[in-house]
């Protein structure tokens, strides 16, 4: 059967019109997002933080899964772009009572939203919504199942670039539950696309996907080996329900073998930076001394998250406008 795949993230001019995954975006596009975000960081440092780029537009935060940080930073980003913001926390148990995702979407479209920011427990949900929305409405993925969390990955890339410079020279390790992590998938894709020098994942075999052929990555089972000479350490959150799946015996054993502590962080380069997408589990994947220590950039990540989301929202809105204009 012929391959009919087209990249629905780009409009006919090759501009971003949806932001669903890092997959399918080239290095220039990722760099443009980072450069745009850099310029918005300066806006955030002013006393008047708003710019009028999305004045008159409505951004709907459509969250089928609970979230605090991602949703609030999207809300702040939209408000700083002068958009009207609608926050909808949709209890998934309510939708499972009968209304399909498609019906929910049709209802919200009728309210005239210009951008949907979507978080959903099913992989591919944002992709599905982008295929179904009316033309000129943009969809931004705020996390779908295990698939992708591309705005998180971009804020991580921005953090790395601002604090450690260009990617070619860097060794980067991602530690923890790679198997279930949409953040890890998006980070790996972004790091590969941006040409990172060496990318490693560090985890027990039970928390690694069965097949990582899609990524250029080195696999380590031992923290001491995996962190050696590393410039950037990215810790992932360990979900408590993983213990139920017989994947690891206990939090204690995980902390002993993969926890980032003052001792284990020393395996990395002395000036290595430590990152975490949050929320952190102190004493499970990371010690307080490291999370709050001088190498940690965990709080910087949060503020960069606003700038990155401003960049992505404004680029998608402009990509949709361009598409609309070219059709007339």
């Amino acid at each position, binding site marked *: 059967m012929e391959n009919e795949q087209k990249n629905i993230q780009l409009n006919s001019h090759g501009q971003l019109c949806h932001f669903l995954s890092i997959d399918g975006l080239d290095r220039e596009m990722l760099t443009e997002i980072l450069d745009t975000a850099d310029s918005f960081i300066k806006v955030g440092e002013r006393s008047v933080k708003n710019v009028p780029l999305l004045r008159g537009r409505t951004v709907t935060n459509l969250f089928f899964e609970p979230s605090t940080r991602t949703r609030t930073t999207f809300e702040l980003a939209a408000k700083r772009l002068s958009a009207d913001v609608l926050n909808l926390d949709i209890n998934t148990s309510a939708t499972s009572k009968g209304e*399909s995702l498609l019906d929910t979407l049709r209802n919200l479209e009728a309210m005239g939203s210009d951008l949907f920011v979507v978080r959903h427990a099913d992989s591919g949900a944002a992709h599905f919504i982008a295929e179904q929305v009316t033309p000129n409405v943009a969809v931004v993925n705020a996390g779908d199942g*295990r698939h992708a969390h591309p705005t998180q990955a971009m804020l991580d890339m921005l953090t790395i670039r601002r604090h450690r410079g260009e990617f070619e020279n860097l060794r980067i390790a991602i530690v923890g539950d790679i198997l279930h992590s949409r953040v890890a998938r998006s980070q790996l894709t972004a790091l590969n696309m941006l040409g990172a020098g060496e990318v490693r994942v560090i985890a027990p075999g039970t928390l690694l996907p069965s097949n990582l052929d899609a990524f250029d990555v080195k696999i380590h089972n031992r923290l001491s080996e995996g962190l050696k000479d590393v410039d950037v350490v990215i810790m992932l959150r360990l979900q408590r329900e993983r213990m139920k799946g017989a994947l690891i015996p206990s939090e204690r054993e995980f902390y002993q073998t993969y926890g980032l502590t003052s001792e284990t962080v020393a395996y990395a380069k002395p000036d290595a930076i430590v990152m975490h997408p949050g929320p952190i589990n102190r004493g499970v994947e990371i010690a307080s001394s490291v999370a709050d220590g001088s190498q940690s950039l965990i709080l910087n990540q949060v503020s960069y998250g606003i700038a990155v989301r401003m960049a992505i929202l404004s680029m998608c809105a402009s990509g949709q406008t361009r598409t609309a204009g070219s059709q007339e």
Partner: protein
Amino acid sequence: MSGSSLKIINGWLVDPKGGTEQAADLFIHDGQIIAIGAAPDGFVADQEVDAAGMWVMPGVVDLAVRLPEPGYESRGSIDSELAAAVAGGVTTLCCTPDSRPVIDSAAVVKLIAEKANQAASARVKCIGALTQGLEGIYPSEMHALKQAGCVALTNLRRPFASNRVLLHSLAYAATHQTKVFLSPVDHSLEDGGCCHEGAISVRLGLAGIPEIAETSAIATSLLLVEETGVQTHYSQLSSAHSVELIRHAQQQGLPVTAGVAIHQLLFTEASIEGYNSAFHLQPPLRTEDDRAALIEGVIDGTIGAICSDHQPVSASAKMAPFAATESGISGLQTLLPLAVQLLQEYSLSAPAIVERLTHGPSAIIGLEGVGLTVGSTADITIFDPNARQTVNPDHWFSGGLNNPYMGKILTGKVAATFVGGRKVYESEPDA
């Protein structure tokens, strides 16, 4: 001569069992083939069909069709699916027991048989439930189901409460000399998966079904089959290792056969790129190596039957994020055209592939009188292997539009279908 008479002229007869692959005329009287080549003395045809440039072959016998009745009428009806069957050249189909109620009593078998008789289209054989309610706890009333006409019993991909229940179900089936269809899955290893576990599932973030969920269950069940001696058909294999396990068991003399769905021979996990729910299937499409091994199994006979694994679903069932969609392809009408694609790709012979669609499955369910030989039942399909057709809803009979070829062009088209010498389908000239 009494009864109706039919003459099919100028066709290319394709019947592997009779050793027939020749241009010859076919003479049918009273539902049976009475002569090949020259007309018998005094033969007067009531009806004459010109099959120039087409295959004249035994009607397809499909071992895996999910009928929407009883219980799932929003997906279609027995009428609609039998119309789809004959439009696809299928003259006998075996329906799966996962109706509502489940086919675990003679009453449900009778209900389906009555509706099928009223439809007067393709023949329907029921596959009964191996356990009551398909719940995997108590063996079904196998004697009663067999008496009612079930050709085999199965639990589909549903779990058994324990290997003890599976063992006893197989032993009880052996007692009643009933054929068992197994589609073994270790559900603890499947664990909510919706596609093959591999590079693509990892990248798309979809929970995968590892190959070992199938192979470990097949390996276990083969030991139980050996223990009980029950005649077993492994339906819808999906992996290379499964083919190896079955091949080895056959070499050891175990009474096992195997089948595969046509889409497993043509597509791989790559088809789900972009979260294409049309290819959400159970068992899932796996790798190119698996596909190659399944084709090899079809060629060497390890796999004796190719089925459509027809599963019509409602339109909304495929409109959701991938994992939330229903699995299945409404495949009866595309079975033969897809089989022709296979021929072109692998330079298989037409009789070899026709065998796996007709005599192979017939032998598995003990269906007699199949073939293009004198005395055979006149269940015949006339198929134009070169005609091109656009698959479209206007010429679609199944209640489920869930076919990945919808709107696309396929080569190969059923021209006419006969059941018991009676024309039950004829394609429209411009269809």
